[in-house]
C-alpha cells in the first residue's frame, strides 16, 4: 500500500480529521438556521475519510469505514428517515408531521420542540446515508489493482518529478 512520504502531510491530515468531522456535525446541527444540513454535513464528514484514504493509503483509509459498516449505515440512514415519518403516521399525524410526537393538543412550545427534534432526526438519517454512500463511492472508484497492493510500492517522489512534468 502506498503511503505519502511527507511527514508534514501525514501530520496535518491526522490533526485535521477530527476538526473536519466536528465541523460536519456543526453543519448538520445548524442546517435550520445557517448554510448546511444533512447532505452537506454528510459530504464534509465523508471528506475526512477521503482525506485519510488519500494520505494513509487505500487500505488504511478503508479500515476506518469498512465495506460491511458502510453497507449497513447507508440503508440505516434511509430507515431512520422513513422510520421517523412512519412513527408520525402511527401517532396519528401525516407522514413526517413531527407535531404528532407531542399530540395535537400540545402547546405551541412543545410542537416547536417536536419539529426541531424531528428535523434533526431526519437530517441525521440523510447524513448517515450520504456519508456511507460517498465513502463507498470514493473507495470503490479508487480501489487499487491487486498486484499493486501486493507490491506495496512507496517510492519517494522528489523534485525530479516536478521538473519532468514541464
Amino acid at each position, binding site marked *: 500500500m502506498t503511503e505519502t512520504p511527507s511527514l508534514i502531510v501525514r501530520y*496535518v491530515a491526522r490533526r485535521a480529521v477530527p476538526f473536519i468531522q466536528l*465541523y460536519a456535525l456543526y453543519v448538520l446541527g445548524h442546517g435550520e438556521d445557517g448554510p448546511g444540513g444533512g447532505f452537506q454535513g454528510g459530504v*464534509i464528514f465523508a*471528506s475526512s475519510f477521503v482525506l485519510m484514504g488519500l494520505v494513509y493509503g487505500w487500505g488504511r483509509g478503508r479500515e476506518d469505514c469498512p465495506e460491511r459498516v458502510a453497507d449497513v449505515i447507508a440503508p440505516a440512514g434511509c430507515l431512520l428517515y422513513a422510520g421517523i415519518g412512519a412513527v408520525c403516521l402511527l401517532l396519528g399525524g401525516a407522514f413526517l408531521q413531527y407535531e404528532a410526537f407531542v399530540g395535537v393538543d400540545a402547546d405551541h412550545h412543545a410542537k416547536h420542540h417536536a419539529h426541531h427534534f424531528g428535523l434533526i432526526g431526519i437530517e441525521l438519517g440523510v447524513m448517515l446515508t450520504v456519508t456511507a454512500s460517498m465513502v463507498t463511492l470514493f473507495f470503490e472508484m479508487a480501489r487499487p489493482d491487486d498486484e499493486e497492493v501486493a507490491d506495496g510500492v512507496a*517510492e519517494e517522489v522528489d523534485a525530479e*518529478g516536478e521538473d*519532468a512534468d*514541464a
Partner: protein
Amino acid sequence: MHDVHLAVAILVLLGVLTTLPRAIGGPTLMDRILAVNVIGTKTIVLLALVGFMQVDLGVSKGAAVGDYERAGFWLDIALAYALINFIATIAVLKFLERRVRERDGADAS
C-alpha cells in the same frame, strides 16, 4: 469600516487576477496546482471579507457595531471551503505522484 473592507477585498481580488495567468498558462503542472491553491486561499479571505461587508451594511442600517453574527454564514462557507480546498490539493498531488511513478516504472521496464 465598509470602505476599508471593500478596499482590502479589491486588493485581494487583484492578487487573484495576478495569479490567474500562472494558473492558466503554467508552464509546469506544479505552477498550476500552486496557483489554484493560492486562488483558493484568497477565496477564503474574500468570503470572510464579504461577510464583514454584510455586517457593515447592517451597522449602517442601525444594527449594533459588534454584530458579527451576520457574518456567520459567510464564515461557515469559508471554513468549509478551506477544508475542501486542502483535500482537493492533496488529491491532485496524489494523482500527480502516481502518474510520475507509473511513468518511471514504465521507463525502468
